[in-house]
């Protein structure tokens, strides 16, 4: 059928099929600003368009329904201000506001938010914050915590209503805190400044920047047949009918491809875990595991083709309770002979990894204690829920090299792993990483790349594989669920004498990240409290963990990487101990927490990288974090104040306040390497090529700021490109909170080398110009895009670039550098939470979250605070509502964002961020990590606040109404 439709003011006649969605047709027609989160059910709002001026989801609307209506997309709103000789209208005020406010992180939901803002402001030019939040309520954002988008819309409203912004008081958001810097490097012009993200302009315009935003002639749709059983042997698989279906180009089963064991974990070589996965196998190990691949001309044909594959399964007993995995009579999940061990893996016992760390002697410490406090804690399996699904496009290029265009955090690891799986040399694979629509660890996994690649090898044609949202929940990765036992010895004065954590971690069906995630659970959370006095020098700490296989979907990397699990247990436990001792919870924590100049207690016992080596922690701003955080949340006025806890006239509501202290790491020492190259152009601009992957964090911008600082230019003169394994230097990728620190140090080294070449050439030019032979490279200062000598003579970078490339002793001024760290300096934070609890129903509302962080020098306060706000928001879901549940057959009960709820803009608590700046001496700009630590403290702070409110002492998150009510019943039973 043909429809008449008006898009962005132009009329079109489009041929469609009756069942085609408006989303599919608009993207087919090139409106790539409209994104798809894979839900197909209007849950995420990434596909928002304006229909007759109202924001609607285009994935739940038929294209035919839109006939006769006016559609607006972001493509119509504004354009880049510089288009050569052509005058452009520039960006729309709303786009500009999103850019300037730092409202854009990964940018996948940005066009949708901008449209929703446009719809609002056209009807209501001067909205309040609640109205803005309501307008954005249909668009899920996993990156920002919504604070900066709300601020952007309020700012745009003011500008649109009042014109000259300088003379107008901009609407302010009460929750926004000024970032407080305790030490400001005054001479820096770029580092430490709130620079606009280098990719913000294209993302605000909805440019085709993401993996799926391309069209390719002859591209096939790749799909996966997933297992309906948690554990089964495939006795027979008949694909003959599927192969006969017109439009099906290939069907692959385990019989068709090489049987090569690998790990999907995108980590440095050697992978620190067992090789226990095959692209396709004759055994399935979880509901959602791979059974077959299909490539077809259309999505519909692929689906029909999948339905024609006949599989005969022999169902096997399934292990769905991690406490049963290692029972003697348990079925063995990995009995394949090709299994490749790592360290203590023992698949015959369903053990993927084992950790036994003893620091000091806990048994002696327990004997020296006045009290021994035990506790058992549990954390759930939760999902990263990045809005852009996993997506990869593969094709043979003109040299018969396999090109993999993929939304990955680890392009170089992906290339290496694919090489083995596909039996294709690394040199014949090129991985291109466009912009990433969020990853949070889940894209540190090789999940769809091999599927597309196998199908491209089979068909010779380009293949696109994209997970649906259901597949993301069913067959991607998640945070490891854990059961944790704590045992702590403590003296009457509050000194911890020994601290023990015993952890049972469920890696699911495969051991990707099994060892390292759970290693970090202890390595970070159990390092924070070393004890006081003599115990500081010689703490007694034990961390034992068994990481077991079950028939649940595999767990993997998720922002925080095992540390949030540990801190739920440690920080709830510390709260209980302080109550037991009748000590102030903050005083107790600070008394025992690690301090500047002390040895990281785990540094001699365990490392995620190579052999452990002693590491002194030089900067610990924890005490200052506590002071600042307390002041912001009003701790002293609230904690212990009986009146504050009551809400007049509503006796069943109680308010509570809680704290958690946390630490994380910065990169993986001795192992992970970052690289960067910088080259100078003839206009004095620079290309910065990095293998690092900005998955929305702003790392491209931060790296550009560091280069700009060294080179004495603005970041507008740096063109950042990341990443392409053919062109950019190697980088381990985006994980372990490492990009700013590791890749940043590589950038600084490269920039210093380029700066040196510039100084030499500038000195030569100036000597020639002035005849002053005393001008030396050492005396040249680079600033404001000029090279200047002490006498005031200067030359522009443009002149230097021209001179170098065209005029005299020609050379390409460029440098490549790399960096591997010898340390992993921990960031620290104090997380505060304020809650209101309905003491009759157990319903909890989180009212306020405050996080004070020591993350070293903050390179970009806007992007860094955005990281914290977004991280706290994800952690808020971990605290109160996110949980992946399964039935007795291992079938997921939560396969969409209706049942698995992530927070919306119109239900967020107040968020406040304050940075306590220290200078980490191991980095040229003194930075430490910021990306992951915001995940660590919210859940225990909320748990402690619930305890403070009503006595409900939770062991398990999320703090659902039912769990809180049960804990209240226990508390009342104990106190009555």
């Amino acid at each position, binding site marked *: 059928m043909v429809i008449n439709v008006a898009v962005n003011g132009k009329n079109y006649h489009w041929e469609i099929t*009756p069942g085609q969605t408006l989303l599919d047709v608009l993207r087919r027609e090139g409106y790539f600003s409209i994104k798809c989160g894979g839900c197909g059910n209007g849950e995420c709002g990434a596909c928002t368009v304006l229909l007759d001026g109202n924001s609607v989801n285009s994935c739940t609307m038929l294209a035919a*329904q839109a006939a006769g209506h006016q559609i607006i997309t972001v493509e119509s709103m504004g354009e880049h201000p510089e288009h050569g000789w052509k005058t452009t209208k520039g960006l729309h005020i709303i786009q500009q506001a999103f850019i300037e406010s730092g409202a854009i992180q990964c940018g996948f939901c940005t066009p949708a938010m901008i449209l*929703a803002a446009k719809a609002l402001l056209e009807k209501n030019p001067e909205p309040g914050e609640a109205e803005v939040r309501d307008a954005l309520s*249909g668009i899920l954002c996993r990156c920002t915590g919504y604070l900066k988008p709300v601020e952007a819309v309020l700012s745009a409203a003011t500008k649109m209503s009042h014109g000259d912004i300088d003379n107008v008081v901009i609407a302010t958001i009460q929750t926004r805190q000024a970032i407080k810097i305790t030490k400001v490097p005054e001479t820096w012009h770029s580092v430490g400044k709130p620079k606009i993200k280098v990719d913000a302009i294209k993302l605000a315009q909805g440019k085709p920047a993401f993996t799926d935003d391309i069209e390719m002639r002859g591209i096939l749709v790749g799909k996966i047949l997933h297992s309906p059983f948690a554990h089964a042997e495939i006795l027979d698989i008949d694909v003959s009918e599927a192969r006969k279906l017109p439009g099906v180009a290939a069907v692959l089963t385990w019989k068709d491809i090489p049987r090569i064991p690998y790990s999907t974990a995108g980590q440095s070589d050697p992978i620190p875990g067992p090789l226990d996965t095959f692209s396709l196998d004759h055994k399935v190990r979880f509901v959602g595991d791979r059974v077959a691949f299909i490539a077809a001309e259309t999505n519909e044909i692929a689906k029909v083709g999948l339905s024609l594959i006949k599989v005969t399964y022999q169902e096997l007993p399934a292990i769905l309770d991690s406490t049963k995995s290692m029972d003697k009579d348990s079925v063995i999940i990995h009995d394949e002979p090709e299994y490749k061990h790592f360290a203590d893996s023992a698949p015959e016992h369903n053990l993927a990894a084992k950790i036994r760390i003893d620091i000091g002697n806990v048994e002696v410490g327990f004997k020296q204690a006045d009290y021994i406090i035990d506790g058992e804690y549990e954390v759930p399996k939760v999902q990263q829920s990045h809005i852009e699904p996993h997506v990869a496009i593969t094709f043979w290029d003109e040299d018969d090299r396999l090109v993999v265009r993929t939304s990955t955090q680890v392009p170089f690891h992906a290339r290496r792993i694919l090489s083995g799986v596909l039996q294709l040399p690394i040199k014949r694979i090129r991985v291109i990483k466009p912009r990433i629509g969020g990853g949070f660890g889940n894209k540190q996994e090789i999940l769809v790349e091999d599927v597309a690649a196998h199908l491209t090898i089979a068909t010779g044609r380009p293949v696109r594989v994209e997970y649906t949202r259901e597949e993301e929940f069913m067959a991607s990765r998640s945070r490891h669920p854990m059961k944790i036992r704590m045992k702590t010895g403590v003296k009457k004065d509050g000194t911890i004498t020994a601290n023990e954590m015993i952890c049972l971690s469920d890696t699911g069906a495969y051991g990707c990240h099994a060892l390292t995630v759970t290693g970090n659970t202890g390595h970070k959370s159990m390092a924070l409290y070393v004890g006081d006095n003599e115990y500081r020098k010689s703490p007694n700490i034990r961390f034992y963990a068994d990481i077991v296989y079950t028939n649940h979907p595999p767990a993997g990397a998720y922002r925080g990487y095992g540390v949030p699990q540990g801190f739920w247990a440690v920080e709830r436990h510390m709260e209980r101990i302080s109550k037991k001792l009748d000590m102030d919870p903050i005083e107790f924590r600070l008394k025992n927490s690690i301090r500047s100049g002390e040895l990281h207690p785990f540094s001699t016992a365990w490392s995620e990288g190579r052999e452990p080596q002693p590491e002194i922690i030089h900067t610990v701003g924890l005490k200052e974090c506590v002071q600042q955080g307390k002041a912001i949340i009003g701790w002293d006025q609230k904690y212990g104040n009986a009146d504050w806890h009551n809400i007049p006239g509503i006796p069943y509501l109680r308010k509570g306040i809680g704290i958690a202290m946390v630490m994380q790491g910065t990169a993986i020492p001795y192992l992970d390497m970052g690289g960067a190259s910088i080259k100078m152009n003839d206009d004095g601009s620079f290309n910065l090529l990095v293998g690092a992957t900005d998955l929305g964090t702003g790392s491209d911008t931060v790296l550009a700021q560091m280069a700009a600082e060294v080179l004495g230019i603005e970041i507008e003169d740096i063109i950042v490109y990341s990443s392409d394994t053919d062109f950019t230097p190697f980088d381990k990728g985006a994980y372990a909170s490492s990009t700013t620190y590791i890749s940043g140090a590589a950038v600084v080294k490269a920039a210093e080398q380029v700066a040196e070449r510039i100084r030499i050439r500038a000195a030569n030019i100036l000597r020639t110009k002035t005849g002053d032979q005393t001008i030396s490279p050492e005396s040249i200062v680079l600033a404001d895009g000029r090279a200047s000598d002490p006498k005031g003579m200067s030359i522009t970078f443009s002149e230097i670039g021209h001179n170098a490339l065209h005029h005299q002793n020609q050379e390409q001024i460029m440098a490549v550098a790399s960096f591997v760290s010898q340390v992993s300096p921990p960031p620290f934070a104090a997380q505060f939470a304020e809650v209101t609890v309905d003491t009759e129903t157990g319903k909890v509302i989180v009212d306020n979250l405050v996080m004070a962080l020591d993350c070293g020098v903050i390179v970009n306060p806007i992007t860094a605070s955005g990281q914290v706000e977004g991280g706290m928001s994800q952690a808020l879901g971990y605290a109160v509502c996110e949980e992946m549940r399964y039935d007795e057959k291992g079938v997921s009960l939560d396969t969409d964002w209706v049942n698995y709820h992530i927070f919306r803009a119109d239900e967020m608590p107040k968020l406040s961020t304050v940075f306590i700046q220290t200078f980490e001496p191991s980095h040229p700009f003194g930075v430490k990590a910021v990306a992951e630590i915001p995940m660590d403290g919210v859940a225990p702070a909320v748990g402690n606040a619930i305890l403070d409110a009503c006595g409900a002492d939770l062991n398990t998150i999320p703090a659902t*109404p039912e769990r809180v009510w049960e804990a209240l019943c226990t508390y009342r039973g104990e106190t009555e």
Partner: protein
Amino acid sequence: MIQEYHRPLTMSTALQLLSKHGYKPMGGGVGLSRTSEPISVVDLQSLGLDTIKADHQLVAIGATSKLAALNAGHGLSDRLLDAIKIEYSMNQRNAATWGGLLMRSGGSSLLLAMLLAMDCLVMWQPDSKEVRLGDWLPLRASQNPGKIITQIIIPVEVKIQFEYIARSPRDRVELCCVVCNWKTGRKRLCIGGPIEAPILLVDGSGKINPSSVSQNAYSLFRSINTYQKSAINTIITRLITGEQFKW
């Protein structure tokens, strides 16, 4: 699988289409059929059913009116507008229709429970049938009074209060209770939760015993645990004994 799309301009054409096997009415745009069976959809957007008329006593909402079209100016309780926002995001409100809400909403729908408590009247075609929501809702899965909902009639002079339990303020509602109170003294109390559709528990003007209402509620749930019993009893008691239950 949608094989045909129709957008009739008259009610008679729409009814004619919907009398055929495999033809389904289509409201707004908050969910598309995922059935693998071939179906034909009949888009109701051009039938003129998208008006909202209000007077002092009643608001008549056209079935294809969007949820977002209802506003404070129509004179209905703010609590109804609150419930819409709790359950539907802005994008959904801009696409979802009132008729679609009645057809699709499940047992935990706060909004549907509220409409039930308000004793709404639902108008159907063919034959211009008027059916109380409470009379139709229990039969919804198997028996509809007509092919097309044309209007929903909501009384204005009703006081509404509600309580709901969810893991976060905008999460899927787990349990809800709505109470409506007329000036005449009439009271209606409905409950929603893990059931097919919200259930009316009280309709009358006499004294209400929260405990017996709760007991009645428990019996209507297919399975109910201790927490759910406690929560139901709590929110029912709050709404019945609270000040808001009085005019």
